[in-house]
Structures are given as C-alpha cells and as structure tokens.
C-alpha cells in the first residue's frame, strides 16, 4: 500500500511537473489570467462600488454569492462539530475538581458527592490544572482587548486596506479563544455561552442572506446591493459600498462565533466543562 501509493504519487507528480512548462511564466503580466476578466475588476471597482480594495469588492460584491456560501460552509462546520461532539450535560463526566483557596488543597468530588458552591472559598479547576498561571493570565488580560480592537478595525477598514469580515472575525474569535486558553473554558462560556455563539453564528449568516433577500424585495436581483439605493441619501454606487460593509459585518459576526463554537467543542471534547 505504502509503496504503491508512493509510485502513484511520483507518476502524478511527474505528470504535473511536465505540465508546468506549458503554463504561463510566473508573474507574466500578459497571461490570460491577468488580461481576460481581472482588468475589469481593477479598472471598474472604484466607479462601480467605490471600494479601493479590489479584493474586498470582488469578495463581497462581484462574487458575493461565493462568499455567502463560504460563510455558510463555516457555519456548517460549526454546526457539524457541535453535532458530532456535543455531549449533553446529563452525561457529563464523573469527577470534578475543586481547590480550597485558603489552604490550596485540591478536592476531587465523585459523581453523587456534594458539589460545593462556587464561592470565595472554593474554586472549580480543570483536571489538567496547572498552577502559577498569573503571568499568562495577566498578559492575556492585557492583550485580549487590543486584539479585539484590532479585529474590529480590520472589519471596519476592509474597504481601504487588506482585511475584512473573515480576517477580522477570525482575529476576534482568536482573541476569545486566547482568553479561554489562558483562563478556563467555564469563565469564557459564562461570558459568551454556547447558545449565544450558535445564535450569533446563524445570525451573522442571516445578516448576509437577509441583505441579499432584501435586495430582491426592493426590486433588484439577489445580492444586488444597488437595490439598497431606495433608502434616502444613497445612490447605487454608495449603496453597493454600504451593502459590502453590512455583509462584511455579518461575515465577521458569523466567523467569530463559529470559531469560538468549534473551539468550545473541540477543546472540551463536547462536554463544555473543561477546556484546554
């Protein structure tokens, strides 16, 4: 099997290798890829959508339908991880660990034992708890808000600079994941519960899809944001620009929520009790 696979791969690789000589040179400005459709985007983006970042304009407008389903793919991944891994609470693991804060003793409470109130005296800890995490904790506490701010900037400034809904959303999600890694999963789920991440995830995609459907209702085609120009103060071009912004915000929300959702399920193996 191993050797057979290797031979097949070598043949396949050789085939691909021989084809490379027929492809246009790297960086060739006169290749069909650079001369057939793409000049249209570069030359007309500003007048069509008034978005200087051509990638954003294509992503959210010219090929916005792809991006809608790209967001749907992310959403289905979150849903799929939930579907595959989530274990309902009543089947949750047997033992829980608590630390007595004043003495530093660790208590292991078996199923059926009396679970102490989470108070100033007892703190629930993960079974793989590592002591002395003050530095990590404080650093992450300092870093997380700035990362989140940067993520918002990336989403908001996607029209003019690299970035947009996806990148911003992933960074925002990563900030929350960072918080979950440095503290623990429970204190993260208290702030952003699984339910709200699921709702936000589908809500983000609904924003995108809803914008598209609203355009149908307003008489333009599906995802044709120029239909939004019926709102006062908008001409078709700026309507497209605002449409892109709305859509990017939807994408950002969906991606943030789904990344966190996937992390919750992967890191806790579906119990959502203890994280990384």
């Amino acid at each position: 099997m191993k050797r057979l696979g290797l031979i097949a791969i070598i043949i396949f690789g050789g085939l691909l290798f021989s084809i490379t000589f027929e492809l246009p040179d790297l960086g060739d400005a006169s290749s069909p890829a650079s001369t057939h459709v793409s000049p249209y985007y570069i030359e007309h983006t500003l007048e069509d959508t008034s978005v200087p970042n051509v990638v954003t304009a294509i992503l959210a407008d010219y090929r916005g339908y792809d991006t809608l389903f790209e967001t749907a793919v992310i959403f289905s991944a979150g849903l799929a991880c939930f579907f595959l891994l989530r274990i309902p609470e009543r089947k949750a693991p047997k033992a829980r660990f608590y630390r007595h804060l004043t003495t530093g003793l660790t208590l292991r409470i078996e199923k059926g034992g009396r679970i102490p109130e989470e108070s100033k005296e007892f703190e629930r800890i993960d079974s793989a708890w590592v002591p002395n995490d003050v530095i990590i904790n404080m650093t992450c506490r300092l870093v997380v808000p700035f990362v989140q701010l940067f993520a918002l900037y990336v989403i908001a400034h996607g029209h003019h600079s690299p970035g947009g809904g996806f990148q911003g959303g992933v960074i925002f999600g990563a900030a929350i994941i960072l918080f979950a890694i440095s503290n623990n999963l429970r204190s993260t789920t208290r702030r952003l519960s699984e339910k709200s991440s699921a709702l936000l995830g589908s809500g983000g995609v609904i924003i995108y899809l809803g914008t598209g459907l609203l355009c149908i209702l307003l008489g333009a085609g599906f995802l044709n944001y120029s239909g939004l120009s019926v709102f006062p103060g908008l001409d078709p071009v700026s309507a497209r620009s605002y449409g892109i912004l709305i859509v990017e915000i939807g994408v950002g929300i969906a991606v943030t929520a789904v990344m966190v959702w996937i992390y919750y399920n992967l890191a806790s193996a579906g119990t959502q009790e203890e994280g990384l």
Partner: protein
Amino acid sequence: MIWQLDLIILLMVVICGIAAISIRDLLGAAIMFGAYSFMMCLLWSIMGAVDVSFTEASVGAGVSTVFFVAAVFRTTRRTRD
C-alpha cells in the same frame, strides 16, 4: 517580488511540511504545521496576495493550530509514524 527571498522561504515551507508529517509526536506535528502555515503566509505576502496571507496568518497559523492542539490534547500525542 525578490525571487531569492521567495526561493528561501519556499524551501522553508517544504522543510516545515516534511517535518510536520514526519515528527513522531502529534503535538510537535501540530506546531510544525503552524510554522508551515506561517511560512506560507510570508510567501504569499511577498507575492502580493496580502488578503490571502492575512487570512492564512489568522486562520492557518492561528486558529487551525489551536484546533490541532485542542484535538491532540483531548486525544493522544502518540503516533507511530
């Protein structure tokens, strides 16, 4: 595009890729995969695909690695190949 730099990073990409699949420890493999993604993201930013490399930096080197680490943490580091 500076092709010498490009070539060096490409070499690093290939090395990281081979390392990621040959390390006999899944956590190490996950980290090497993160390095691979990061090298790839550098390569793309040199080639002018800033949006793609931005995404790869956050998705490939960031979140993907976290997912790998989380999965390895919940399963096992052991691997026989």
